């Protein structure tokens, strides 16, 4: 089915799915609205009061009708629930081969970083047809990453990572909005998503290339912050080696294990003592305030690059 005039462009694989559910809901709505409006209108005219002393026969209700108009709406709502939940669940699981992009929201701009090191503000360039996975966080208040043409939205919450993904199906320029009220210039926290042919995208990525890839920047930051003094690759340092860390299960002091995903890495940089690796001391200082959210993302990306590629690409999708 195509697009109705009151729906935005369909530019991702989700868009038609969401719109089809919308059409179903609209059909149900229109049917019941017409039914109710029609019945009220008909009754109001047909049974209008003809004399002030008129007394209609009392009727007390009918069980069959009550059951009918309980069961039918219930059945319909369960269809709506299942259909909507199915879409939602797919929206929640990025495919393993998705292209990773990092997003940092702050009052009042979007900062986006490509793996190759390209950085953008309030603009996001992406290739057509590739699934894109966004890993997002905020430096201050809650924001929300919203692209109407993709029918996706995800809150960006300070203190944690959130993920959304989409697969663009149409080239062009689409609105990017902040959908969660974030302060004075909330309505200026907007931008555009440019979906490009893969070849154009490759050109764009190569053109005015500013520097190293995200992982390389992270590696440099790793040196600058003197992380490498303790985290040595051969495990000879005071702190655990980070090679092959990402995606593995880490044994913790005091029992239990934790999966080394982006959230764990972020926490370990900013609150290193939250989870101590078994066999090590709590000697790492916190880097809260010393490194920005973008810096943390670069470090995370560097640490991911130290692990075998398949795990890194999977990005925790299991």
């Amino acid at each position: 089915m195509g697009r109705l005039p009151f729906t935005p462009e369909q530019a991702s694989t989700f868009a038609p799915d969401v719109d089809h559910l919308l059409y179903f809901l609209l059909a149900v709505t229109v049917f019941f609205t017409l039914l109710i409006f029609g019945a009220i209108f008909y009754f109001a005219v047909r049974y209008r009061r003809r004399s002030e002393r008129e007394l209609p026969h009392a009727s007390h209700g009918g069980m069959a009708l009550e059951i009918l108009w309980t069961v039918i709406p219930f059945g319909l709502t369960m269809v709506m629930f299942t259909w909507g939940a199915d879409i939602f669940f797919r929206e929640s699981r990025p495919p393993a081969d998705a292209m990773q992009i990092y997003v940092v929201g702050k009052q009042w701009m979007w900062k986006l970083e490509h793996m190759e090191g390209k950085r953008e503000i309030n603009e996001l360039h992406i290739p057509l047809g590739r699934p894109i996975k966004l890993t997002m966080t905020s430096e201050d208040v809650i924001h929300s990453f919203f692209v109407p043409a993709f029918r996706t939205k995800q809150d960006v919450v300070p203190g944690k990572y959130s993920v959304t993904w989409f697969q663009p199906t149409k080239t062009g320029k689409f609105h990017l909005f902040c959908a969660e009220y974030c302060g004075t210039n909330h309505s200026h926290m907007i931008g555009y998503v440019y979906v490009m042919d893969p070849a154009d995208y490759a050109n764009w990525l190569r053109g005015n290339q500013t520097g190293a890839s995200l992982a390389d920047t992270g590696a440099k930051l790793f040196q600058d912050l003197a992380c490498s003094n303790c985290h040595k690759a051969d495990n000879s340092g005071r702190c655990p080696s980070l090679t092959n860390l990402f995606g593995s299960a880490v044994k913790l002091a005091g029992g239990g294990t934790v999966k080394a995903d982006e959230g764990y890495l972020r926490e370990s940089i900013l609150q290193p003592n939250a989870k101590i690796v078994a066999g090590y001391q709590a000697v790492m200082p916190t880097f809260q305030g010393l490194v920005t959210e973008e810096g943390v993302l670069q470090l995370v990306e560097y640490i991911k690059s130290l692990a075998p590629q398949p795990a890194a690409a999977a990005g925790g999708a299991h």
Partner: protein
Amino acid sequence: MSEHTEHQVDSALTYVLVFLGLIALTVITTAVAFVDLGPFSVVAALAIATCKMLLVALFFMHVRHSTRLTRLVMAGGLLWLAILIFLTLGDFMTRGVVGIPGR
């Protein structure tokens, strides 16, 4: 509206016994706190606290003499507290199950 409301006066002995029970439970719960029960530490502490609450409510607050409505009000309040806590925990405990941050 026809329920009679004459006081059922409990004997002082009943109150003394309940009071002693409460003190005993306080001692027990404090002592148990020094024993390593693993995850049952929480269970033990809350179970004893619940017993104490029931003693206070049933005897000191006269719930055992009270109308069904009063008991319903009390049960309803606790049920709503449970709704608040368990549905919220339903979120916090299932975060990260899919393995996607923020989901």
